[in-house]
Every structure is written in structure tokens, then in C-alpha cells.
């Protein structure tokens, strides 16, 4: 997803009353994260589970929250998502950068990257893939999910090499 849309994504979600952006940086999402930093609206945590915990506390305080992470960190957080977010039905939006989407991505990303959609499906976390064309519609979908007290995930594919 290009820089312009990633920056717009932050402001769109912010305008729609997402108040907190908490997570661990990921290069696929770097422009989005940079926009959070520029607007001084970010907490960068030491691990992804920690971000899920903080965002849960904020959501319990009736302040909508988004947790950003790479899919490697999503894999780290699975037990936290099932035993906290899904168990208590905490309406969070996960924004996940999908490494290993391209079959020639770096080797450490290939195994989890290949099963990323299945992982989401198996734990029952509803998700949509964000693109430069559909991002607003998919954000609206996510906002509707949390309004109905359901957590959900938006996924951005890593389409480039560096």
C-alpha cells in the first residue's frame, strides 16, 4: 500500500473515533506508523501481546483502539487474542502487515506468511485485506464490527522487497 494511502488511513480511522494506536512497528505499515508518530498518537510496546493488553484496557475505558503489528507478531499473540480479546469480546481492530505474502520474501517470513489467512480463520478472527482501492470500504467494515463488539483484523500485504 502506497505512502499517501497509508497516511490517509490514519486520518480516516482517527476521524471515525479510533483514539488509540498501539503496537510494534512493521516495515509494511511504516508510513501509517509514521503518521501516528507525527500526530503524537502512538504507543510503541516491547511485544505485540503487551500492545493487545494496553489496547484492551483502553477499550474497557470506552476509548476505541487499534493494534498494529507484523504477522510474525500476530503469530506471537495468538493465545492472547483467544484468551483475552475473543474470550471477553473486546472490540479491537488489528492492523497486520503480511510478510511472506510474496513467495520470494525473506526466508524467515515464508512459513507463517503462507498460513496467515488460515491462522486468522482457525482462531475465528474475522479479517479483510486492505488495498489502495478498497481501503475505505474495508475500514468501514471494521468500524462496524467493533460497533457490534466484535474484534476484527485488517491485513496489508507486503508487495515489495527492500
Amino acid at each position, binding site marked *: 500500500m502506497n505512502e499517501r494511502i497509508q497516511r490517509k488511513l490514519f486520518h480516516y480511522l482517527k476521524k471515525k473515533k479510533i483514539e488509540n494506536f498501539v503496537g510494534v512497528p512493521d516495515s509494511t505499515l511504516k508510513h501509517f506508523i509514521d503518521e501516528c508518530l507525527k500526530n503524537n498518537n502512538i*504507543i510503541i510496546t*516491547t511485544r505485540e501481546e503487551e500492545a493487545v*493488553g494496553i489496547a*484492551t*484496557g483502553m477499550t474497557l475505558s*470506552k*476509548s476505541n483502539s487499534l493494534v498494529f503489528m507484523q504477522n510474525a507478531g500476530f503469530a506471537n499473540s495468538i493465545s492472547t487474542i483467544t484468551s*483475552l480479546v475473543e474470550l*471477553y*469480546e473486546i472490540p479491537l481492530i488489528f492492523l497486520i502487515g503480511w510478510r511472506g505474502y510474496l513467495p520470494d520474501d525473506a526466508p524467515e517470513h515464508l512459513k507463517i506468511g503462507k498460513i496467515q489467512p488460515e491462522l486468522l480463520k482457525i482462531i475465528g478472527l474475522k479479517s479483510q485485506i486492505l488495498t489502495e482501492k478498497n481501503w475505505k470500504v474495508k475500514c468501514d467494515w471494521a468500524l462496524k464490527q467493533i460497533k457490534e463488539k466484535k474484534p476484527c483484523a485488517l491485513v496489508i500485504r507486503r508487495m515489495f522487497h527492500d
Partner: protein
Amino acid sequence: MIRKEAVKIIANHIGKNHIISANGFMSRDLFEVNDKESNFYMIGSMGLASSIGLGIALKNPKKKIFVFDGDGNILMNLGSLVTIGSLKPKNLVHIVFDNNSHESTGGQPTSSSQINLAKIAKAVNYNVFVVQTKTKLISILKNIKKLQGPIFLLVRISTSKERSKRVSWDPKTIRDRVMKSL
């Protein structure tokens, strides 16, 4: 002093303030001795009570937020101390009940007896207190009311065979009660 006694003393002392309690026997003890709407019993997600407490504390600066943690729990999420210490929430009181063991899973040892948790907390900007007796605990509780956080209170406790019942509230009810009280 065993955990249940310490939990009872502290919970009675802090009244209606919010408590986020760690999974396992920690939440069970709190549920048995002082159940109330503003308790968030974290029944899974080991390690995250302090992170949930941080999120609540940041969004409710006028309320004092207490975390009831265990040594096994905080050792699993030491990074949380770093994040709390860098954000410095004035209204967060982080209490660690330290029995040097994973009591909920059969009493296996943790490494808390080999290192200095209080020193770690001090290094990351907490205001730190360590207590071992009931009398000291009561006097510290009076003191910390006036102090600014983040406060780290290490309560040394002994292990015990006493078992509290499981939290009987459904997780969604726990969520709704806490949300209503915030």
C-alpha cells in the same frame, strides 16, 4: 503472610478503586475475599494484567488503578515495566505478590528469588516499596495514597495450601461490569 491475607488487607484498604488481577490463584483469591464490579479478573493471557492496567490508567487519569500481579506473571512480561516506566502514569499502583513460585501450576520455582525485582522496577522509574509483614503493609498502604505513581509495591508472601474457588462470573459479564464502573 499468605497471598489471600495480603489480598484481603489491600483490597479492603483501597475500597472501590479498580483492580486488574492476574490469572490463576491471584484472581481467585480476590474474587473470594472482595468481589466487586470494578475488579477485572484476567482469567487467561498470563503476564498481561499490568498492560491492561496501564491502558486503563492512561485513559482514566483521575482514578487510581491497582494491578494485582504475581512474580510468575510479571517475569513473563518484563517489557511491561519498561513501557509503564517510560509513560509514567501517576495513577497506577502495581502490586506484585511474590512467593518465588508458580503456585497456580503446582509450586514450581520462578527466578524471582535469584534476582532483584524491586531494583528492576526502580531502574525503570517506579516509586518502589517492599514489605513482608502485615503491619508494614498497612502502614505503606496509608503512605502511598499521597504519593505519585507509577508505584511498585513488592509484597513478599509465603506459599500456602489454601485454595480459593474459581471466578464464577462469565468473561463478558466481567467486561461489562468493569466498563460500567469506568
